[in-house]
């Protein structure tokens, strides 16, 4: 390969994304720890003794036991809390079911599907009750879709950049293949009355969490989801049935769904008034700000990881938007002065995680890495100072600004505002 093919297309050593298609590139690994010495035996233990027997349900390798959700419950009430997806330790666009983020208001209920019922009532011609076994007989559809908590990345509002792994900062977002029944099909069976404009959804957990959604969204693309990545939804994600509301705040994707009530007005529940509303500098708060904004972050290299030596690296990360498809992700290695377009991994789907990658020649000097995403509606991920200029710093929810990672001379990575 000729040296001119390694000519940077932006400052700081970013290379043409199509370089990945070339053969013979030598990439340098990004490590969590110093690399261990290669085993020297010709025939290892694993090659010399029979392995483990079959198992009914597989688990990750013991060597991956650090790839876990980081849980944070209220010390006085551990059932009220969140857990983050370790985005920094994962690849591709799908979140393994055991690593999907959690937000529970009063614990995970243990629900027997045979006794669970879903009620559809209110402004309908016929109030209907469904058994789970009957709902599973309906024609199903699947879609790949992220779910992101409205409060994801809220540490970004802090005055100082929080030093923690990317997933434990931005990992109240996960992406799965969800399979279920379009809500519209059941509403059509019940018969929607003309005055209906809103729907109150309620869960069967100990908090009986409830929230109002516009009827038009439920008719547009919402699912009653029963399956997550091919298996029945995990208890912490709403077993036996949850609402899937593509691209909108996670809290609307009501888990353990027991009731959908069609109304002519929102109920003004706690989670649409006191919470999930964004206080602006003028003292007013934005309400019903459902759509999750366009967002991206580099997951490798990111905080806590280590570049061992100068050389060729692959920068990779995730982009997503509640408005639709991601059309472009750009990466900067000089703190945002110059940008290079990253390769988007197919398939690129609407309201779904999109993986991006770009090759980067690290010279062993200080660098600041950033990514910025643009969606099909033309929304561009803002710089942090732009977001704060527009919304102030007390909104708490809907933080989606550009994330900056500083690479030090020694290859260590820290979080900076730049």
């Amino acid at each position, binding site marked *: 390969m000729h040296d001119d093919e390694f000519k940077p297309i932006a400052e700081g050593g970013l290379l043409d994304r199509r370089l990945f298609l070339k053969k013979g590139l030598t990439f340098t690994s990004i490590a969590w720890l110093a690399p261990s010495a290669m085993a020297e035996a010709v025939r290892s233990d694993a090659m010399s003794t029979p392995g483990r027997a079959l198992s009914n349900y597989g688990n990750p390798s013991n060597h991956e036991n650090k790839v876990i959700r980081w849980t944070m419950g209220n010390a006085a009430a551990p059932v009220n809390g969140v857990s983050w997806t370790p985005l920094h330790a994962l690849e591709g666009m799908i979140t393994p079911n055991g690593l999907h983020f959690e937000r529970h208001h*009063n614990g995970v209920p243990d629900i027997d599907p045979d006794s669970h019922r879903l*009620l559809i*009532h209110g402004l309908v011609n016929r*109030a209907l009750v469904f*058994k789970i076994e009957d709902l599973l007989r309906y024609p199903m559809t699947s879609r790949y879709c992220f779910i992101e908590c409205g409060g994801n990345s809220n540490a970004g509002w802090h005055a100082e950049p929080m030093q923690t792994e990317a997933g434990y900062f931005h990992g109240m977002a996960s992406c799965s293949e969800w399979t279920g029944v379009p809500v519209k099909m*059941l509403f059509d069976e019940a018969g929607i009355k003309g005055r209906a404009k809103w729907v109150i959804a309620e869960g069967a957990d100990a908090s009986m*969490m409830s929230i109002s959604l516009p009827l038009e969204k439920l008719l547009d693309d919402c699912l009653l989801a029963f399956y997550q990545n091919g298996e029945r939804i995990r208890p912490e994600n709403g077993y036996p049935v949850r609402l899937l509301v593509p691209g909108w705040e996670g809290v609307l994707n009501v888990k353990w769904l027991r009731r959908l009530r069609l109304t002519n007005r929102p109920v003004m*529940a706690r989670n649409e*008034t006191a919470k999930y509303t964004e206080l602006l500098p003028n003292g007013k708060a934005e309400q019903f700000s459902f759509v999750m904004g366009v967002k991206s972050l580099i997951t490798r290299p990111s905080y806590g990881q280590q570049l061992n030596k100068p050389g060729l690296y692959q920068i990779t990360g995730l982009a997503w938007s509640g408005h639709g498809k991601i059309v472009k992700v750009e990466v900067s290695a000089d703190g945002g002065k110059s940008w290079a377009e990253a390769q988007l991994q197919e398939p690129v789907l609407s309201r779904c995680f999109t993986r991006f990658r770009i090759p980067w020649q690290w010279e062993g000097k200080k660098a600041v890495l950033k990514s910025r995403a643009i969606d099909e509606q033309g929304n561009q991920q803002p710089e942090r100072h732009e977001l704060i200029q527009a919304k102030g710093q007390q909104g708490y929810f809907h933080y989606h600004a550009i994330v900056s990672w500083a690479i030090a001379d020694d290859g260590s990575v820290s979080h900076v505002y730049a």
Partner: protein
Amino acid sequence: MSMRKTLLFFFSVCWSVAVIAESSPDLGEIATVDFLEQGRYDVFPDGEGLPQGSGNATQGEAVYNQHCQTCHGLKGEGGSAEELAGAMHGLTDNPPDKTIGTYWPYATTLFDFIRRSMPLSAPGSLTDDQLYAVTAYLLYINHIIKNEDEISAKTLPRITMPNHEGFINVFDGQE
């Protein structure tokens, strides 16, 4: 309508019914009146959904101290759970205090939320009178009602919260 048009209309109706029946399994059962009681937890700002019963802040203080104070602190000042009253800052201060008194737009939301979700260790355990009383206490410590004011299905929806006008519906703005 002519006979021909009437027949056409009749057949088109039959045809669409047939299409719905074919594509939609229709496996739901008509909800009984008893089952519809499950919807009784929703309380709207106009008071729809509020039950019989009543209570005042004096009665509510006892309920609060027994069931809420451990987490929410003395007089709602906050603890392991969020502050509910006693705001020292307004919404334009840095940092702002988002309490019931400074932030919540509707008093009915208190009853709706406490009835469905609180207390955390035993949700659903308070009687309707206790719920009205503790709602009254939370309004009282936020200086919205007086100690002796009786809170009920009749009076709760009439309360105008200090931050009633504080919200911008950005969804309708997007329409």
